[in-house]
């Protein structure tokens, strides 16, 4: 840019700076604020339960500093320690440690009383000891990840012999079915992301995180995927397989996070019923990966690589979710999964349209609807 361009670029910034100074320094801000009491906001990001001790990680997502004066558990004031300070500035974080003989498998309620008398309540729906970084907890989270992520995807890959024997027109139906599966996953994850976004401290703007995460992932992957002229041959299908594996992998990172977090807060989303359900549900992910490449006799190592790419992130997600879950992190991760899935769906539809007959065909529509139906039915097992 020329010096003149720089000057024009800086002008609005300088003007804005002047306005901010004027508003904050002339007392105008105080008049705008009037006599309203400060609006305090506080979010409990994470509860950790150790024997005889409840710890809360809190963040101030509001505009004003917040001071925690007292803490009660189950309507009884308790002594506590708070580090680094009982006062949290905007976006400040702190940890509150409350010695308390919590009761295994029962519910508790922690209430934080601020210096202005406002209260912030945080329920503990089911008290179980929080997994720590010891080998036992990591092992269990890994096992959960393997069961709900890696194994189902691998099992799904075994649809390969079936799909490879399908006639050409049926093959495209299988791809459409894959698209249906992915649309279901993506939309469901989008709602989950928005739901989690509601728990994000206001300052971190949950909805914006969903947009940034999903569109960021979508656009990045879209630019990274093979450009025009799009390869329609075996190479193109192989690339599609890898992209689907990557998309599902990113999706499973978010899913693992949610499952790990559920395990950590004792919401035994981990009933036998649910884990079985997830296994069946996620088997369809293997089907989605293998569908594009099934006719091309992929090598076993290729398939193993795809299964790993799609399934292993579940384990990583479970670790993060179990050990360091925060709504902010979860929102971002789930949103990234949404974007990745959307990109894969776009990729599949590009493949359909390149076949020359357009995408509005009964075989495509039927495949997509069948995919949604399969997800609905297997979804019954996770609700």
């Amino acid at each position, binding site marked *: 840019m020329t010096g003149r361009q720089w000057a024009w670029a800086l002008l609005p910034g300088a003007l804005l700076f002047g306005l901010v100074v004027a508003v904050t320094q002339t007392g105008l801000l105080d008049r705008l604020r009037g006599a309203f009491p400060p609006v305090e906001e506080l979010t409990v990001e994470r509860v950790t339960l150790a024997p005889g001790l409840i710890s809360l990680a809190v963040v101030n997502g509001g505009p004003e500093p917040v001071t925690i004066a007292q803490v009660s558990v189950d309507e*009884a004031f308790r002594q506590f320690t708070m580090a680094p300070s009982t006062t949290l500035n905007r976006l400040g974080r702190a940890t509150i440690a409350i010695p308390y003989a919590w009761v295994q498998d029962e519910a508790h309620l922690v209430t934080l009383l601020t210096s202005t008398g406002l209260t912030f309540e945080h329920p503990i729906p089911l008290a179980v000891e929080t997994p720590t970084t010891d*080998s036992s907890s990591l092992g*269990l989270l890994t096992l959960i990840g393997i069961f709900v992520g890696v194994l189902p995807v691998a099992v799904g890959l075994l649809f390969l012999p079936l799909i490879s024997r399908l006639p050409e027109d049926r093959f495209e139906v299988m791809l459409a079915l894959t698209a249906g599966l992915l649309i279901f996953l993506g939309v469901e994850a989008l709602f989950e992301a928005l739901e989690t976004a509601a728990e994000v401290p206001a300052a971190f703007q949950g909805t914006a995180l969903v947009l940034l995460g999903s569109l960021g992932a979508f656009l990045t992957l879209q630019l990274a995927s093979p450009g025009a002229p799009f390869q329609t041959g075996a190479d193109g299908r192989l690339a599609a397989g890898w992209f689907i594996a990557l998309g599902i992998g990113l999706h499973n990172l978010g899913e693992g996070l949610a499952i790990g977090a559920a395990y950590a807060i004792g919401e035994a989303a981990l009933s036998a019923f649910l884990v079985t359900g997830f296994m069946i549900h996620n088997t369809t992910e293997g089907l989605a990966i293998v569908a594009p490449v099934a006719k091309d006799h992929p090598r076993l190592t290729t398939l193993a690589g795809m299964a790993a790419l799609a399934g292993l992130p579940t384990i990583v997600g479970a670790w993060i979710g179990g050990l360091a879950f925060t709504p902010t992190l979860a929102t971002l991760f789930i949103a990234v999964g949404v974007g990745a899935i959307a990109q894969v769906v776009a990729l599949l539809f590009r493949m359909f349209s390149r076949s020359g007959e357009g995408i509005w065909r009964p075989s495509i529509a039927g495949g997509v609807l069948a995919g949604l139906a399969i997800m609905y039915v297997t979804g019954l097992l996770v609700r």
Partner: protein
Amino acid sequence: MLDRMMSRRALLTGGVLGAAGLVARGQVLDATEEDLPVPNSHDPSLAAMNGQVIDSSIDPLAFLEHFDYGVESKLPDGRTLREYELTVVDREIEVAPGVMYSAWTFNGQVPGPTIRATEGDVMRIRFSNAGSHPHTAHFHGIHVANMDGVYEVVEPGDSYTYEFTAAPAGLHLYHCHAFPLKRHIAKGLYGTFIVDPLTPRPAAREMVMVMNGFDTNFDGSNEIYAVNTVPFAYHSNPIPVRRGELQRLYLVNALEFDLINSMHLHGNFFNVFRTGAQASADFTDTLMFCQGERHILEFTYNDPGKFMFHAHQSEFAELGWMGVFDVTGQTVAE
């Protein structure tokens, strides 16, 4: 499922390896506990607040035994005239360590001063409103209608003089009766009103306790409970009691939002003089109080030690309505 996973894990690692793992884990846990000492979470002292209240508007131990007899003089007809000043003032008070509350107060304190007279005395209460809302002073007792402190609403900056004869003998209360009642009382406008009988009660150590609470977030329920405003005050600083000395407790329930309150005394029983009646109506260790209800309790401790007293609503107790009598010294009998 978790159990099943655990058993599966045990199967996988199994045998000697599994046993070794358990031992190793135990050591790790021990080390952690040494590094970060965790207090025994069943310790009763932990059922308390962090820090001390500095600016509550009263000193709980001083308030406990302070009575306002007014300015005393003789009327031409020989009766005793007692003149009191009650002024409503808006004031921020500390209702728990570090928690400020915008209270409405009589004479800048919550509860208001404990007003005391003898049956038949003429009481003249000059009531001024220096607050921001209309208020009144409604005394329980027997008096004429325009001295009842309901319809004679006193606007900010105005004043009103209540005059009536102290009757009947007993334990009463006074509070603001401006509407909305609940808000005016909950914000701190209440106090104790004692009318001594013409025949004095037996000599005793006398205390006044007003059971109250504070709805700091205005959600229609109390966050904090106490006697005499400061939660856990007599738990942190026990009330000294002499062995064998008769204790007379004027106990008033000024709590809002909760329909009932109660008093439970440890290691002892008390005589109940309902609304300050002349004869004991009951001998018990737990007594229920409706809103506005008040009774005189009399008891004597014969053994030394610390004896707790608290609301028997465990929730109220652990949210601040809890105290201790510290009994020391020689008994009268010894």
